[in-house]
Structures are given as structure tokens and as C-alpha cells.
């Protein structure tokens, strides 16, 4: 029972963490971020299964997390209001080549960050962008001007 309870508590905490950290941090996986993610996984594992080395314990932990993941995705799918909370909402960063500074500040992004992402999408200048949308996944979608 303990493992299931710990699994729920840690799932909720990590979920909260990923929502409050902001999409920018999650979408830009620098080498250091990758190391931090691995360390985070290790720390969570210790708190989750502790000294339980059994297959049963592992099955309980994995099942708990999988069930919660399916539950959150179902709630997000079923209820629009929940989707906004659980997944976040898109944010328009550029419209008709004009950067919306207020929205950049909100996500702690700079024009250079957006330009970097644009270059990765084969777009040389933000002036060529009709729409740039910061998606809930943390990716930036660019729709070039025609």
C-alpha cells in the first residue's frame, strides 16, 4: 500500500513541478538539463520504492504511475477546463513578423530564443514568420508568411 501512496504523492509533485517550471525549461534540453533529469529520476526512485527490491514492488510502482498518467490524460481529454490546467494552452509569440514581447516575458523567453528556434525551422528572420505559437508541449510552431 505504501508504494502506491508514495507513487501517487510523487506523481502529483512531479506533475506540479513540470507545470510550474514552465515550458521553456522543459523544451530546451541542454546537456545539463539532461543530467538533472536523470538525477531527478534517481531521487524519485529512492523515495518511491526505498528498500523494496521486489518485482511486486516495481509492478505496484509502475502500475500506479501508469494508471495516473492515463487518468490525467483522460481527464484532460474529457474536460476542456482540465486540459487548460493539466496541459496548458498555446501562446502566440509572433504575429505577422511582429514579436509580442509581453508574451515572451511571460515565458521568460527572449527574441533570440525565438529566433534560434526559427532558424532550426529553416526560417532566417522572424519578419518572415506569420505566426509563431508556443505550444503546450514546449515546442514553438512557426507558420511562415506566404
Amino acid at each position, binding site marked *: 500500500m*505504501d508504494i502506491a501512496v*508514495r507513487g501517487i*504523492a510523487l506523481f502529483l509533485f512531479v506533475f*506540479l*513541478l513540470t*507545470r*510550474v*517550471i*514552465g515550458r521553456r525549461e522543459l523544451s530546451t534540453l541542454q546537456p545539463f538539463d539532461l543530467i538533472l533529469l536523470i538525477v531527478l529520476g534517481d531521487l524519485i526512485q529512492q523515495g518511491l520504492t*526505498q*528498500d*523494496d527490491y521486489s518485482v511486486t514492488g516495481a509492478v505496484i510502482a509502475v502500475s500506479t504511475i501508469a494508471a495516473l498518467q492515463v487518468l490525467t490524460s483522460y481527464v484532460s481529454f474529457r474536460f476542456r477546463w482540465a486540459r487548460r490546467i493539466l496541459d496548458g*494552452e*498555446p*501562446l*502566440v509569440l509572433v*504575429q*505577422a513578423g511582429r514579436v*509580442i514581447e*509581453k*508574451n515572451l516575458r*511571460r515565458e521568460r523567453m527572449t527574441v533570440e530564443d525565438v529566433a534560434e528556434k526559427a532558424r532550426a525551422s529553416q526560417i532566417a528572420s522572424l519578419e518572415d514568420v*506569420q*505566426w509563431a*505559437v508556443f505550444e503546450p508541449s514546449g515546442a514553438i*510552431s512557426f*507558420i*511562415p*508568411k*506566404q
Partner: protein
Amino acid sequence: MADVPDAIVLKRDRDLEGRENDVWVRRVLMALVAAIPVVALFNVFGQRPDTHTLVGPAASLKIYAPARLRAGLLYEARFHVTARQELKDAYLVLGPGWAEGMSINTIEPSPVSEASNAGRLSLELGHLPAGQSYILFMQFQVNPTNVAFGRRQTVWLTDGKTRLLTFSRDITIFP
């Protein structure tokens, strides 16, 4: 291509109408997360030991042990007995709160004898001449599933059956 992309609502996703406070909710939650390590620095979640000193006419007892612990932690409890008068047969008696859900890894030096005293752990320290000290080290590990809020830990120092000092406190074990 001036059309708005599908599923994008400009009022909400560009002008942030109805989303003005979202960022503040996120900031407050982030501040709460950031407060956790700050609070931890102030020993709210353990495991820094506390020192408690009791002085009686026959003996003094100094206890050095953490009162806030977490599941799985290794920790030490140190009991420093100083005889102010001769103690013919000193006993350190620990209430069940010291052993409940704990692994007692070692007790050094080993007491002369160990026994149960109405559910308590009775550790016989033996003869202590006046002015002499006896330091008992106990090494514990909190069992990983042990969680406690306000569990009573009591220590009695006795000389034979004569109770000399009593100390009591509540411990917290975080999951």
C-alpha cells in the same frame, strides 16, 4: 495565410484575456516549491540532532538525538550520564517510542544487561562512581515504512529501582 491558425483564439492565446492571473498562480506555486529547501535548511524535516540536558541531585543526563527524522535515515542517539553521587546500579530505560519502527544497529558500549521493563528497553549501565561519566551510543535506522507524528520518546535514568531523571519528547518521522 493571414488567417488565424486552427484552435488558436487570439483573445485568449495572444491577448491573454482570462489568462492574466495564470502566471501568478504559477509563480506562487513555484515559490512554494522553492520554499521547501529553505524550510529544510531550518531543520523542519530533520535530521539535525537536538541536545537536552537534565540535571538532578544524583546525576545528570545529556541526550543528543534528532527529534525530526525521515524514513530510511541512519542516525545516532547519544546518552551522556554523569554521576553526581555514586550510582550503585545505573539503568537507562528507553520507552517503546525509541524502538518502534526502528532498526537498532548497535549499542556501544554494550550494556551489562538488556531486559524488558514493562515494554520498555532497560539497559543496565552498572556501577558509576560519583563524578564519573558514561556515554552510551546507539545507532539507529528508521525503517522505510515508518511514519510518525508526535510519537512519544521517553528516557528514564534509574539507580536500581529508584527513578532519578525522566525525559520525554515527541518525535516526527516524515515519509
